[in-house]
């Protein structure tokens, strides 16, 4: 299977088919990331915007990190922009969602706890705890210092672990 870097090079030269192959390969994670960040509200529009923006700036992809990480950074920036334009709460403020109802289902408990987290903690949790990105990679995606990223992950993990253990 052709690697991301080689496909990205062909796409940057104007090969739309190569770019579509990259979209097919990465849409699942980009959409899941945005879906969880936005709680489904306009996630697919943002995902489309992410891929269109990525197409326009493909020449900037230097292959220093993973292509997916590069896409997620664009997605994160677009998410922040859309949030600002909709005058939503700052990314460090807890998001207002319905109070949690105990139902004994760990997936639902964790989803609710995740939805309640501030956006930055949510993103850090999704990247590091869900997708297995290293702290360094996640810090680069979210464009925050490494120490900040580690604190975000630690806070998110504690909240999610509480939910998982049924004390959230």
């Amino acid at each position, binding site marked *: 299977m052709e690697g991301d870097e080689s496909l990205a090079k062909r796409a940057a030269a104007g090969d739309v088919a190569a770019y579509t192959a990259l979209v097919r390969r990465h*849409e699942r994670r980009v959409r899941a990331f945005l879906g969880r960040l936005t709680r489904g509200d306009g996630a697919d529009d943002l995902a489309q915007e992410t*891929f*269109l923006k990525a197409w326009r700036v493909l020449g900037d992809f230097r292959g220093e990190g993973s292509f997916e990480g590069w896409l997620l950074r664009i997605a994160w920036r677009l998410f922040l922009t859309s949030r600002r334009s909709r005058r939503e709460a700052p990314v460090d403020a807890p998001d207002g969602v319905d109070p949690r109802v105990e139902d004994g289902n*760990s997936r639902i408990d964790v989803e609710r706890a995740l939805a309640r987290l501030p956006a930055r903690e949510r993103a850090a*949790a999704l990247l590091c705890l869900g997708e297995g990105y290293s702290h360094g990679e996640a810090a680069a995606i979210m464009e925050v210092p490494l120490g900040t990223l580690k604190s975000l992950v630690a806070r998110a993990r504690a909240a999610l672990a509480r939910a*998982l253990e049924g004390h959230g």
Partner: protein
Amino acid sequence: MMDEEVDRQLKALLAAPGRPADETFAARVERLVLIDERLRRARRAAWRRLALEMAGAAAVILVFFVLERSGPAADSAGIVPPFSAAGAGLLLLTLWVIVSSRPGDGAEAA
């Protein structure tokens, strides 16, 4: 619960769900990319055309300026000598008209 067990469960709950690629989404993005590419080409063509026309206009203005500086023409009896400023001006003007009225340009921009 052990830390490793918590991490394992969180990973299972937070990871993107495994599924095959969404072909509808990929096709939608491909369509958007193709439209974007067409618009970009049209924009580039429009800028090229504008630059060409500006250069043509500058050349014509320059020729008229030179003509104005060179004083009244001698007894030319209405005939413009080919190797003169006026001749060059007429040549540029003709080229400009030809370039501007190329039928392909309008189609490319649209």
